[in-house]
């Protein structure tokens, strides 16, 4: 896997995820610029086991474009990317 130092991304968290992390925004330094690494880093910060991020139950957007689950593994982040992590919708 490609290793890059100092890729800083901003993660925004919504609804239940914001409450689980206790914040709506986190800047994360990624040593590997992949989605898998980002989730691994974020899961180090969760406060209890039942709050661990389950990728299958996330809606993800990068720079305000929704990314389908099949494309998440292909993501390569760059510094300044805005990543929205959202629970699956429950509107209506």
């Amino acid at each position, binding site marked *: 896997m490609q290793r890059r130092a100092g890729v800083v991304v901003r993660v925004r968290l*919504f*609804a239940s995820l914001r409450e689980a992390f206790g914040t709506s925004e986190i800047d994360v330094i990624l040593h590997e610029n992949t989605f898998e690494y980002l989730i691994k880093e974020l899961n180090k910060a969760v406060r209890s086991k039942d709050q661990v991020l389950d990728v299958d139950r996330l*809606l993800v957007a990068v720079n*305000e474009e929704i990314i389908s689950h099949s494309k998440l593994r292909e993501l390569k982040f760059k510094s300044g990317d805005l990543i929205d992590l959202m629970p*699956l919708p*429950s*509107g209506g």
Partner: protein
Amino acid sequence: MKAKISERLDPLVEIISELKRSSDEIGAILVFIGVVRGRGRDGSKVLRLEYEAHPTLANKVMRKILEEAISKHGLIGATIEHRVGEVKVGEDIMYVVVASRHRGEGFKALEELVDRIKKEVPIWKKEVTESGAYWVKE
């Protein structure tokens, strides 16, 4: 075509009138109204629902769903309105209004639109009941 996410819904009669005025080809207008139920999934008494929407993506996804439905079903027009913030029991949460030449395509489009809004638009609800508050997971 109109997609709106706001603390208040426009009066339904105005939404319908606006659609009617847009074309004299309209032969059917179908309306879905989502309402807050008084009982939660676990049977407890609901006090209110609290809705949160992504500030930009919710509207963007809603518009995309509307455009696709209009094109796929040959609709003349359609409107979606969804509330955010606190919504009390018995109050309206969402209007989906579809205008078509004939009822057949209107019924199909309405059901598809409601399903897609619930599954795809980044809006989340918290159910506040007598026994506690929790985010609803679909």
